[in-house]
C-alpha cells in the first residue's frame, strides 16, 4: 500500500489534524475580527484569509521549541502555530493592556512575543528581514542549533531590505529561511506591476541560495519545502528562499475596498482553491477525521473565540500615564 502524502513527509494523522485545526482557528479568528470591525467594536483588521495553508505548513516544519520567527502582519497562522493563543490575538485586536504583543500600543497584526521567540514587528514592510538574518548570525556565532524564519509579502520583496538581508545571509551562510507569501497583490497593485520576474524565487540565484516556488494553498507542499530548508540550515548549508503562492481572499485590510481594483470573478475563482477547503478535503479523504469530528472542531473553535472575544472586550486598556513607560530601559518612565 502506497504511503499518503503526509506519511511520506513523516507526518502523523495527528499532526495533520493539528495543522488543519490551526488553519481553521486562524480563519475563524480572522472572520470574527471582520465581524467585530464591521460592528464597530475594533477599528482595524488585516487578514490572513487565503494564506493559512502556507503559514501553518511552514510553521510546522520548524522546531517550535527553539527556532525563531519574524512574522509579518498577515501571519495569524504562523503566530498560532508558534504558541500565541486566540485570547492573546483578541487582546491585540482590542488593543488591551494584556496584549502580549505590545500592550495595545501597536495596531493589530503587529506581532511579537519573546517567550515564543517571535521578534517584535513594525509597520514599515520588510524591516524584519535583516532582523531575522541577525538572529541567524547570532545563532551561528553562538553555535546554537537555531533556525531563523521570516515571512514577507511579494510586494515587500522589492524593498532594499529584502535584497540586503538576503545577500548578507547568503554570504555568511546563515540558517535563515525567507518565505515570500505571494498573494498576488500589494494592496491594489497586482503582481505584474510589482515585479517582472517569472517567479519571486528567481531572486535566489542572485544571492547564491536555493529558491523554490510552492503552491501556498497546499500546506504539505509548503511543509516539505520549508522542512528541506530547515535541514539545510541546520547542517550549515545556509539560507533558502521560498515563495508560497496563494491569493489574498479579503480586501487588503478593513480600510480597503478591493472592488475598485479587482474583478469579483477573480476572487471567486481563487476561493475555489482556498487551501482551507482543499486541506479539509484531504483530511476527509484520508479519513483522518469524520465529518462529525470536524463539526465538533468547528464548535470548539467557536467557543474558544467566543471566550477570547468576551475576555478581550472586558479587559482594561493600559492607563494613560503608561504612555511614558519603556522608552528606555534604565528607568521605568521618562517623566
Amino acid at each position: 500500500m502506497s504511503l499518503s502524502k503526509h506519511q511520506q513527509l513523516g507526518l502523523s494523522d495527528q499532526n495533520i489534524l493539528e495543522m488543519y485545526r490551526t488553519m481553521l482557528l486562524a480563519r475563524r479568528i480572522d472572520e470574527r475580527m471582520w465581524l467585530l470591525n464591521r460592528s464597530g467594536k475594533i477599528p482595524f483588521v488585516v487578514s490572513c484569509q487565503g494564506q493559512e495553508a502556507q503559514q501553518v505548513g511552514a510553521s510546522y516544519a520548524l522546531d517550535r521549541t527553539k527556532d525563531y520567527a519574524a512574522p509579518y502582519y498577515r501571519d495569524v497562522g504562523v503566530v498560532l502555530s508558534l504558541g500565541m493563543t486566540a485570547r492573546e490575538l483578541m487582546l491585540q485586536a482590542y488593543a488591551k493592556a494584556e496584549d502580549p504583543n505590545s500592550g495595545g500600543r501597536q495596531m493589530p497584526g503587529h506581532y511579537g512575543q519573546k517567550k515564543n521567540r517571535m521578534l517584535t514587528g513594525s509597520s514599515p514592510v520588510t524591516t524584519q528581514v535583516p532582523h531575522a538574518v541577525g538572529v541567524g548570525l547570532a545563532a551561528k556565532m553562538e553555535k546554537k542549533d537555531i533556525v531563523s524564519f521570516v515571512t514577507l509579502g511579494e510586494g515587500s520583496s522589492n524593498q532594499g531590505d529584502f535584497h540586503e538581508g538576503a545577500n548578507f545571509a547568503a554570504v555568511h551562510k546563515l540558517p535563515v529561511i525567507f518565505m515570500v507569501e505571494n498573494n498576488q497583490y500589494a494592496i491594489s497593485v497586482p503582481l505584474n506591476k510589482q515585479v517582472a520576474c517569472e517567479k519571486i524565487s528567481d531572486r535566489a540565484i542572485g544571492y547564491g541560495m536555493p529558491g523554490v516556488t510552492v503552491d501556498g494553498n497546499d500546506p504539505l507542499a509548503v511543509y516539505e519545502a520549508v522542512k528541506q530548508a530547515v535541514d539545510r540550515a541546520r547542517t550549515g548549508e545556509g539560507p533558502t528562499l521560498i515563495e508560497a503562492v496563494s491569493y489574498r481572499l479579503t480586501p487588503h485590510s478593513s480600510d480597503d475596498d478591493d472592488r475598485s481594483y479587482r474583478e469579483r470573478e477573480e476572487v471567486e475563482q481563487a476561493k475555489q482553491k482556498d487551501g482551507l477547503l482543499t486541506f479539509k478535503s484531504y483530511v476527509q479523504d484520508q479519513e483522518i477525521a469524520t465529518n462529525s469530528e470536524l463539526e465538533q472542531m468547528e464548535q470548539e473553535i467557536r467557543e474558544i473565540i467566543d471566550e477570547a472575544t468576551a475576555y478581550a472586550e472586558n479587559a482594561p486598556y493600559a492607563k494613560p500615564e503608561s504612555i511614558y513607560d519603556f522608552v528606555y530601559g534604565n528607568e521605568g518612565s521618562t517623566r
Partner: protein
Amino acid sequence: MPVLSYIQAITKALQEEMERDEKVFVLGEDVGVRGGVFRATDGLYEQFGETRVIDTPLAESAIAGVGIGAAMYGMRPVAEMQFADFILPAVNQIISEAAKIRYRSNNDWTAPITIRAPYGGGVHGALYHSQSIEAIFANQPGLKIVMPSSPYDAKGLLKAAIRDEDPVLFLEHKRAYRSIKEEVPDTDYTLPIGKAEVKRDGADITVITYGLCVQFALQAAEKLEKEDIDVHILDLRTVYPLDQEAIKEAASKTGKVLLITEDNKEGSIIGEVAAIISEHCLFDLDAPIKRLAGPDVPAMPYAPPLEKEFMINPDKIEAAMRELAEF
C-alpha cells in the same frame, strides 16, 4: 466659491498642475487605479492615464530616487509616500541626493521634485501611521518643507511646490483630510513657499504653530476671546527653512510666546523657533517661551486612551494659552 475638504484641495491642485504642464506626473504606491489609499489622487488615473499616474513597486527609495532622476531630466514629478512614516527608507535619496543636487553640481543640475506624504495622528494609526517626521529633514539646506493647515493653503502651496525649482517635502495632515473644509477658489493661485502667515491677529499672547495645530489653536483662541484673552496666531506654513522675519515680528508683538507642535517635544521644529526668538527678541519677551508638544515617547500608541494622552487637542492648547496669558 466651492467648499472643499483639505484632501479635495490637494486633488484639485494636482489635477490643475497636471493640466497646466505635461511634465507634471504622479508616482507612488496605489496612486493609480486605487486613487491612493486616502484617495488624494482620485480621478487622476482616469483623466491622465497610467503613464502620468504611475503605480510603483513597493519601494520608497526608488519612488524618491526615480523621481529625482526624472526631475534632473526636466520632469516635474510628484511622488507620494503612502504614509509619512514610510518615507524613512527614502531618507538617503532625499537628504543625500535631492537636497544637494543643485549645490554639489554648482547649479548645473536641479531636482525639482515634490514629495507628498500624509503625516500626523489622531486617526487610530498607532506608532507607524501617526508620526510627525518633519524634524528629521529640517536641518537640510537645499530642501524645503511645507505643511499647510487648511484647504485653501493646501491648494496654493502644493501648486507652488510643484512649480518650485527645488525639492519640496509636502506634508499633509491626515486628520485634516476630511475634517477641515473651507472655500477654495477654482482659480489658479499659488502661495509663497518660505513665508509664514498670521492666521489671527491678537494682542495678548502669540501662538506659533503649523499644520493641524493651527486649526486647534484657532478654536482655542475663539474660546479665550470670551475671557478677553486676545491671541495672535502665526502659521509657519513652511517649517524649513523658517520665515525668521515673521517669527520675530509675531513674538515681539505680544512678548508672550506659546509654540505648539504635534511632534514630540525635544528636537522638534519649535525648538528652532524658540532659538530664533531667544537669539533676536530676548528683550521683547515678558514670559519664558512656552512649548506645548507631544510627549517624548517614540510615537503615538494605538489604544484610544493612550492616543488621546499623546495627541494635542484644542483643550490642551486652551489651557496652555490661559496659563501663558496669566503669566
